[in-house]
């Protein structure tokens, strides 16, 4: 059972209180009604499913109720960082900020 640091509660809490919410920083297209079928499939279905360092969303559903983002190693299941929803993609602690894809803020 994971131990997850909720950035809103500032507390380490049991995984039981949380719900995983998929990959992070996938922005909902501004004008979604206009995008192509391919782009929609990309947005809605295709995922990196990264083996290693991944950016993901969690919700402290049985705690403060907030969605937030996390950087986790999907091999060791260690959390490297958790941060509030709405913040841009955060760099892996101890590394340079990642530029690519880091722009979109809204879709946290």
């Amino acid at each position, binding site marked *: *059972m994971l*131990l997850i640091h909720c950035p809103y509660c500032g507390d380490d809490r049991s995984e039981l209180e949380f719900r995983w919410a998929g990959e992070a920083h996938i922005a909902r297209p501004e004008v*979604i009604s206009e995008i192509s079928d391919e782009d929609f499939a990309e947005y809605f279905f295709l995922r990196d499913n990264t083996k290693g360092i991944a950016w993901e969303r969690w919700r402290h559903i049985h705690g403060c109720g907030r969605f937030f983002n996390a950087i986790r190693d999907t091999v*060791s299941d260690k959390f490297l960082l958790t941060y509030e929803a709405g913040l841009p993609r955060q760099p892996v602690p101890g590394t340079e900020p990642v530029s690519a894809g880091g722009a979109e803020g809204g879709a*946290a």
Partner: protein
Amino acid sequence: MSNYRIKGAGRLTPARTARFTFDGKIYTALEGDTVASALLANGVHLMGRSFKYHRPRGVLSAGPEEPNALLDVARDAARRQPNVRASVQEVFDGAIIRSQNRWPTLGFDIGSLNNLLSPFFAAGFYYKTFMWPREAWAKLYEPIIRRAAGLGVAPTETDPDHYANRFAHCDVLVAGAGAAGLTAALSAAKTGAEVILVDERADVGGALLFDTSTMIDGKPGYDWAQGVLAELTAMANVRVLTRTTVFGYYNHNFLGLVERVTDHLPNPNRSLPRERLWQVRAKKVMLATGAIERHMVFANNDRPGIMLASAARLYLNHYGVAVGSRIGVYTAHDSAYEAAIDLKKAGVEIAAIVDCRAKPGEALVSAARNLGIEVLTGYSVIDTAGRLRISSMTVARNGSTNHRKIPVDALLMSGGWTPSVHLFSQSRGKLKFDAENQRFLPNIYAENCVSVGACNGTDELGALLAEAAEAGGGSLSVSGEAAFGWTGGMIGAAEGAGKETTVKAFVDFQHDVTAKDIRLAVREGMHSIEHIKRFTTNGMASDQGKLSNMHGLAIAAEMLGKEIPQVGLTTFRAPYTPVTYGTLIAHSRGDLFDPARKTPLHAELVKAGAEFEDVGNWKRAWYFPRRGEDMHAAVNRECRTAREVAGIFDASTLGKIEVVGPDAAKFLNLLYTNAWDTLKPGKCRYGIMTREDGFVYDDGVVGRLAEDRFHVTTTTGGAPRVLHHMEDYLQTEFPDLKVWLTSTTEQWAVIAVQGPKAREIIAPLVEGLDLSNEAFPHMSVAECTVMGVPARLFRVSFTGEVGFEVNVPADYGAAVWKAIWERGQALGACLYGTETMHVLRAEKGYIIVGQDTDGTVTPDDAGYGWAVSKKKTDFVGIRGLKRPDLMREGRKQLVGLLTADPTEVLEEGGQIVANPNQAKPMTMLGHVTSAYWSENLGRSIAIALVAGGRARMGETVYIPMKDKTIAATVTDMVFFDKEGGRIHG
């Protein structure tokens, strides 16, 4: 002699006895005995039969690694547990103990015929035969194999005992209370840390329980341990859990412990749980799990009476039991000498110490010889004899062919010690191979964890104590001197069990895996240890390879001509020792298995004689049978009465979400396919929710109470996921919207009153509201007062009749329901349940999301295309709906079905075809989603998803059932009051 209890030896109190039966025979034990020590004290070694060959087996160990002595232990018929380790289970007065896997008796077991056929039953033999005739495997061979396999007999009654769960947190969890564990715990405790110290035995001390020659802080080891225990127990920041096993080491320092609370007590207080599950989150874990002695792999090393040297020493020094009267010792390690010496000093004859090493430690050898023990160095035991108990060992000088047969009634073995790295390995730590000492040791840690003592390969007592004290972080200095070191010994096949032999030299006792089985696996191309394990089942028995893994590895490595690390080590998996299901589920059984949610009106519904159905976690009133009515009759009456007079229905389970804020309408516009800004306060509207994929996700009536306040309803089952879905978009996609969501599902009791007399029924109870059609037409909502309490009244209908839904604060629900029912009864109304609700809504063609739709139906498929706003530029699902397949002609659409025979009610889930005479596999057009007998129409009705359904109006389709084919006509979905006048009446 039948009593092997030695006066003056051991730590049990002779006065305190307990009686138990083993295979029907009554035996006496001392309190504190394990089943094994008690039986041994009575001269009983034969305790089990092996898995495959049904060979007679005695107890091999004195701990959790026991592969042989697995027994059926019962308190009474219902309190019976199979596969219990005799070496761990403590005797309690009245215990009923039986041997397993034998028929008719343990002494004479027909199954042992397998032993004669063993040349045939080589590893993996079943993969090579039993293939013809085709059916024979499942019908003939498999049942035979199954009967022969298995060990204990499963319980046949529900376990009357209860179990408990406890979540706990600590700074330091110490696993193992031997010299290292006790020192580490004390050291940590002195720093003020919250410490939990765990040991699987009833008493602390670990190896000090048998190793009486070790001194710590100038005291005999055991006395020192008791002193430390007392010190720890007295500290407020320490919790000591004995009879407790750390069975699992999970992510992020989360550990599972099982505490055996009552299984050692003769008459446990029934309020006590039998076992307690501890779920501990530790900041730091200290593993002090020690080491497990290895057996020697030689011909017929499995006869009753053959056991680990340290086990014999524990039975003597702790339980005061001699495991034989003329004992042989076969060793590759110093520690066995200590056992021989202790036994000799206790007056037991030692036939000989056979040491396969040419030059063992001189001190030990002479110590033994000085006591008159014959020591044969450079010798090996190459065979044993005896049917149900060892009667002799055959020894030979290594490399020589001259044998000598020595009569013995017990044989102690020591191949050296294997560090217990199971928990470390479970924590995903990486092991390294210590080539010099032929063992795996902790290397890279994955968690905040440290290993101390024997499990870390730290063998010298002084170093061990220092390491443990330092790990604890406290300034603690403990000194000690041990009689022997733990390193050395051998792994793999011993003299006479080598490559070319065909002898049975057991590696895995329980599964009857021999050295030659391992070699066969290698010959058959199994070169990875995982393959060898799976092919031979070595290490897969209930001891999970605690004794067999290293030997198996060594034999495979030798056969492959590789180094051990190249062959690999199989991963250790939780649990460390088997854990009772009841303990793992703890409180989650019966009423506490899953919460049964009851509405505020539940008691009233029960009084009214309702039958209930499970809908998600909810208990919902299904129908209200009157005396002599079956479900069908009751539902028909309810349906008729509801339309002729009125019906009263508990709709409290409907999900409710209060959507509040200046941007509330804007938000709903994005979450529902409909448009909401056009909805005036005081009005409601039916809404459909899709996800981005455009498929129907939920539906419900939404009422606007004020510009900035909506009362949203969802399906009963959908409430939690809809709120989660809404929060997701609000928090992460539209965070700038000024709106908040609150679940009010349980704030309101909801009483639906439907039918021509609905208004008449509720009117007198409602204050401050004109209920007339003009003032309060269909699809209105208002806040008012009902029976003096603030209420929300909806003019809505899921029946097609005049309908009201009275929402009152939950605690008032029962009173309001009573009043409404009182008036309703007087006017001839009825109570109705979910079944009637389903029929009435189907008569009107109203859908139920999740029944008439699944995850593949669009609003248009469902006939609700009108609910999808054409004007909005964005809402969740707007793009998904435009994908090619969702726009395709011929999609499955909801339509009505009328059977040719009006009395024929279709089966929900019935599949629909155009041509019932086609060959299988048939082309199916769709399926029946809802089907009922409509009393009001005097015929059956159905709703179905049919390919191109709306273009098939009037067509005949067929529903082929098992016994007949039913014809039906495709119609629209509204069967009753097509004009829809009644709803406005």
